[in-house]
């Protein structure tokens, strides 16, 4: 994963709450077996409407999505994060993220920054005043800057550290290989095993 410290780019005032991952990328686009090529699928349903904000010329090349509360609810599909990344987004700001979406973001270099609702409203107002305006999200100082407005955002300290360092989760965990093996040696016998396959004589 690449290191991320600061993102400057066009911000999108995305006035929607409860944006579920089925809207971010409908299931029909989940059939790919690769991690890329999802940019056309992003918000596919909504993009059919020519008036949809991401279809407006001012927001082409946008890097920061500023959304309402409960972003990324529903399905666990990491494809939602891949699609946002493929489209060009490096940051999503929202007052509240769904847990799984937030976790997936941190693992794919998408900054999911939590900003209080009142601040989101202020950012929306500034971005709408001047569509296509650039803003900066600085991970180092945990600040969002739009013109003269500068506010803080929340992100889990561990996720922030991993993003700043560009660290691979699995490699980090494997540093604990010995602890994992020791834990495994203590596991009770009754715990489930999928192998060898056990089968009852007949149907129940």
């Amino acid at each position, binding site marked *: 994963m690449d290191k991320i410290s600061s993102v400057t780019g066009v911000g999108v005032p995305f006035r929607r709450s409860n944006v579920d991952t089925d809207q971010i990328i409908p*299931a029909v686009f989940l059939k790919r*077996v*690769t991690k890329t090529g999802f940019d056309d699928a992003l918000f596919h349903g909504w993009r059919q409407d020519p008036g949809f904000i991401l279809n407006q010329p001012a927001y082409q090349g946008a890097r920061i999505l500023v959304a309402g509360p409960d972003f990324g*609810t529903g399905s666990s599909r990491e494809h939602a994060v891949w699609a946002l990344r493929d489209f060009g987004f490096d940051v999503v700001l929202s007052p509240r993220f769904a847990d799984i979406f937030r976790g997936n973001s941190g693992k794919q270099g998408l900054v999911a920054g939590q900003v209080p609702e009142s601040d989101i409203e202020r950012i929306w107002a500034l971005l709408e005043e001047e569509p296509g305006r650039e803003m900066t999200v600085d991970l180092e100082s945990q600040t969002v800057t739009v013109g003269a407005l500068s506010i803080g955002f929340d992100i*889990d300290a561990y996720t922030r550290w991993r993003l700043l360092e560009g660290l691979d989760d699995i490699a980090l*965990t494997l540093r604990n290989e010995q602890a994992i093996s020791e834990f*495994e040696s203590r596991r009770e016998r*009754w715990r489930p095993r999928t192998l060898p396959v*056990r089968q009852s004589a007949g*149907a129940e």
Partner: protein
Amino acid sequence: MNSATQKPRTLAEKVWDDHVVVKGENGEPDLIYIDLHLVHEVTSPQAFDGLRVAERPLRRLDLTIATEDHNTPTLNIDRVIADPTSRLQIDTLRRNAEEFGVRIHSLGDKEQGIVHVVGPQLGLTMPGITVVCGDSHTSTHGAFGSMAFGIGTSEVEHVMATQTLPLKPFKTMAINVDGTLRPGVTAKDIILAVIARIGTGGGQGYVLEYRGSAIRALSMDGRMTICNMSIEAGARAGMVAPDQITFDYVEGRDHAPTGQDWEDAVAYWKTLPTDEGAVFDAEIFIDADELEPFVTWGTNPGQGVSLSQPVPGPDDFDDPHEKVAAERALQYMDLVAGTPMKDIRVDAVFMGSCTNSRIEDLRAFASIIKGQRKADGVRVMVVPGSARVRLEAEAEGLDQIIKDFGAEWRFAGCSMCLGMNPDQLAPGERCASTSNRNFEGRQGKGGRTHLVSPLVAAATAIRGTLSSPWDLSIDTAFAPTEEVQA
């Protein structure tokens, strides 16, 4: 540890504590051991790829099992899958399973089915374990008193490589449901009412524990329905404390412990229920006596009302986001505020999904439609959760009741719960569905979904408008009590 001095703990805390491999310090997450990893075709290909690129083996094949469900057709399952992209994804899973040595149950196999139906029926899902799957409805397995949650593909790869996940501890929320459900009111109505109460974000950061006499009275199938939809309230996991009903369900299944292992397991499982005096971070109370059949009207699972109510409008909400969401939802759903829910006509009824496709769900559905004919012009599809459930239903003659009713009896899979396989709504079509998500386009582009219980699905299939068994003139065990009519 001295139990006399130990702080009382909740069920979730106990299961968590017993899976900590490395305790996180200075804000780092705990490293949690995963007992069971369920795999399906949609969220695994990129994870297997990751292992290959890093030249890592899959650490514990004996704790991993795969099945095919999201993409699979529910008709003509012996033929080559028509959609080439679906076929590629299924073929990729089969190739990966073979290359890495993962146990797989493919289309046509007796154990194939929706991943969350397969785990419990094989006896792999049991109390006190951790279960993950690249699917948000993994919360289903929490019904056994396990800690079960959905993960993204990066985490799928992480579990494959390490059998662990770095996780921050969750907060806990008690959902107390006391009282007695009236006939015709089911587990599905409880969970829809819970989601309407706390909202789709209300459970974020929490593990929900469903408690109280109404939960204790439920069968395992009912408890699974409730835990399944915890994610629709924003909670990654939902749990029910294990009891004799749980033990009886698990005992004797293919992979259930036997002999001394069984004795040891049950002795441990009995220690799991939340201690007297344990404190939850949040708590809500639901009166089971008051509940009625419930149905959603909007485009998120929190937008639900009792079936006896009218369609709400933006003015019924104080929160500005909810107002806007209601407006948008009414437009998408093509509904007018104030219309009685029961006047809403449907084009389709879908009976299936990991929420409601187990044998009891099919029995409940069949009990209402037995000897009836479906409403004209309504397409009714019944999809068992697994090949085994299908066989079981056929052994009981449920398939015949379903066919005589005029409904389609299909093979197992996720089917019309999500628009990923051939079973989809056409644009503008309206469906009463026993599934879990009423998001825009979830059941097919432009499709409109009302989430309901199997009993409401059955009554709706008979009348053609959203209905509960209370609305049927036929003599059933679900006739309303007088106070309900009043």
